[in-house]
């Protein structure tokens, strides 16, 4: 241990959870950049501070995004990581791969980069972690030869992402993979050439469980739901109830937020008019219950992290829209919103903050929607109403 270059980090190779330090070391076997990272990181652990500097503008020709520039402030000590940019590769919908495709990606990366990756970045990209400016064009060219493209960064549409959806989930109320692919392809220009006031994130979840955290992390969140009655298989209900460890009253009935499900010892009854489509009963009894048949999605807008005005969860814009290719209704709505944003947005102000500033009512009016009570949890409680109509003396 005494001759290790990373005695502190070595402590993080202990313990049962897979170690990122081991990963860096594995990469270092192939790439001196990874070795540089290991050593700089060791210094960070010693000094308890980052050794990265603010990124400069760096990218590939014709693209405004997709590369995050990164430079070391200790390049004298660690010249291998003097440049250490990341490449955001647009992942496939649902993060599905074949081994062969991954091998192609890794071949490019082992040739031109640090051999380190993130599978995946928080937005969803396949992240190639650490390369030099000189490699960027080659990486891009080789990626596109194999059919891959860059993801978003800066004030553009960020790489859309989605849950596994209908590919492997019985709860999916629309085709999240198809929509993600369609939007990604439809908005290639918006994705690659930043011209918005700030970033715009799309996330698609197939049902209200929201397995991509879209309601917390995306400027535009599309969450599957249904309008009609929950589908029930009475026999399967009985199977659940027969299980001695299963307490239908406690696990299901008592936890229904709208108190619309009841069990009389024999029949499970759902008052579907009052069901708020929370998924809980379905989650607990997936063999017996399923979302209804009239499926579609709720569209929500404006989620974001705290900077600047405080974090926001997305809020309902359209309670229900059918989600069928070519998704025209959705795209028309997006066009209206982006037009509004273009006219009203301020630099570094997310759409959620912009809506708060101009008022949801004004926003809705300007993008051509009718205000409806579903957009709010409750009507206003303060009397500070900007009345617009009034009479004038004749």
């Amino acid at each position, binding site marked *: 241990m005494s001759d290790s270059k990373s005695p*502190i980090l070595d402590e*993080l190779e202990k313990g049962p*959870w897979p170690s*990122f330090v081991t990963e860096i070391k594995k990469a270092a076997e192939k790439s001196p950049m990874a070795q540089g990272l290991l050593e700089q990181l060791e210094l960070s*652990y010693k000094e308890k*501070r*980052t050794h990265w500097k603010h990124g400069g503008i760096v990218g590939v020709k014709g693209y405004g995004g997709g590369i995050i520039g990164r430079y070391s402030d200790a390049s004298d000590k660690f010249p291998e990581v003097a440049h250490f940019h990341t490449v955001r590769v647009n992942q496939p919908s649902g993060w599905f*791969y074949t081994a062969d*495709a991954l091998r192609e990606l890794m071949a490019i990366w082992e040739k031109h980069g640090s051999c380190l990756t993130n599978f995946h970045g928080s937005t969803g990209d396949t992240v190639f972690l650490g390369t030099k400016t000189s490699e960027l064009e080659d990486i891009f060219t080789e990626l596109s030869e194999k059919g891959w493209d860059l993801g978003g960064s800066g004030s553009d549409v960020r790489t859309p992402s989605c849950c596994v959806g209908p590919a492997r989930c019985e709860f999916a109320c629309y085709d999240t993979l198809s929509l993600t692919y369609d939007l990604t392809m439809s908005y290639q220009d918006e994705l690659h050439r930043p011209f918005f006031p700030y970033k715009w994130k799309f996330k698609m979840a197939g049902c209200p469980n929201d397995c991509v955290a879209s309601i*917390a992390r995306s400027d535009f969140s599309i969450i599957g739901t249904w309008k009609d009655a929950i589908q029930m298989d009475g026999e399967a209900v009985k199977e659940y109830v027969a299980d001695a460890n299963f307490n239908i009253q406690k696990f299901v009935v008592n936890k229904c937020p709208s108190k619309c499900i009841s069990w009389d010892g024999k029949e499970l009854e759902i008052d579907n008019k009052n069901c708020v489509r929370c998924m809980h009963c379905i989650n607990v009894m997936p063999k017996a219950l399923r979302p209804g048949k009239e499926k579609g999605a709720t569209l929500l807008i404006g989620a974001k992290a705290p900077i600047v005005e405080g974090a926001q969860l997305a809020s309902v814009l359209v309670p229900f829209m059918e989600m069928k290719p070519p998704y025209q209704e959705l795209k028309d709505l997006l066009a209206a919103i982006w037009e509004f944003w273009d006219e009203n947005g301020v630099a570094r102000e997310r759409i959620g903050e912009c809506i708060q500033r101009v008022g949801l009512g004004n926003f809705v009016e300007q993008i051509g929607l009718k205000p409806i009570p579903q957009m709010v949890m409750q009507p206003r409680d303060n009397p500070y109403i900007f009345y617009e109509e009034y009479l004038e003396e004749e």
Partner: protein
Amino acid sequence: MAAPAVKRKTDIGPPHYEKFLHPIIKENYGKWKYHEVVKAGVLVHVSETGAKIFSVRAASPRLLSSTTILLFCDLADKYSGGYLRFTSRNNVEFMLDNEANIDPLINELKQNNIPVGGTKNTISNIVHTQGWVHCHSSATDASGLVKVIMDDLFEYFTEMTLPHKVKIAVACCLNMCGAVHCSDIAILGVHRRPPKIEHKNLKNMCEIPSTVASCPTAAIRPTYVDGKPSVTIDEDRCMFCGNCFSVCPAMPIADPLNDGVSIWVGGKVSNARTQPTFTKLAIPYLPNNPPRWTEVTCAVKKIVTLYAQDAQKYERVGEWIERIGWPRFFELTGFEFTKEHIDDFKHAGLTYRRTTQMKF
């Protein structure tokens, strides 16, 4: 010099996902009927056609070497027809049509020190960010925190013993590149001192108006230093968010002596039962104590242990705390309730207790 314009391939987008779907998945796309948890880390989805697909979920540190990715590829070829995927929490999943392959795959993963788990009522992988590995903005390291916390909570990943899912997130600064603001438990890197202004560089590196505008609390004002335009910070109004540094590199905020982490609890994203909700402050500050951040792992372990004991089945951490009440949460954990816990930002007033409803 000017080379003949070669038509460059741009804007082709990602490969179509269909290419990457296991044949069983392609055939049963949208026809799944129900799923069951075979055991921790193993799901089976059953189609209306009767077809079945088995998914084996394995842990990943997310920061992966190409070597390990290639290992995954080999395992996929061997056991899952060459198909694999990653989850929204950065685990890797192998989709098997042959039930008999499950245990051999799990064994081979184990031989490579890759545990299987994270399904149902477990603690799955931790959503996290770059930290000292790649970000200039970080107040702590994310990968290190994830490693020590998951080491400590390991059995909750591999065994499904909790009342419900527990979603943990780590972010290394207030930008919160992840799900920190809506997680059951979140660890957030924090600064505690205002940025130090590099007056010499400021005018060259930054736009003064946008720097001034970047501050949520209006602590920054334009000024002149040594005859040069720069900015000044009203230290009393600074709450160390670092947004000015995001906008202006000449305002570095890292301070090894005072940076550290805060711990947050009770957020969630799903619409199941209760509505999506933000994570709330549990511990305002713990020191950065790498490599193993013992103060942090102890605190997280304490929360998880109490939750495991006290929560009802299907109750997320926040639902449990709401039921017992925040006063009781602080009593049980022994965490000190301080001035910092009381909100003082924009909507602070709405967090005050505006009812006499209380437990004694």
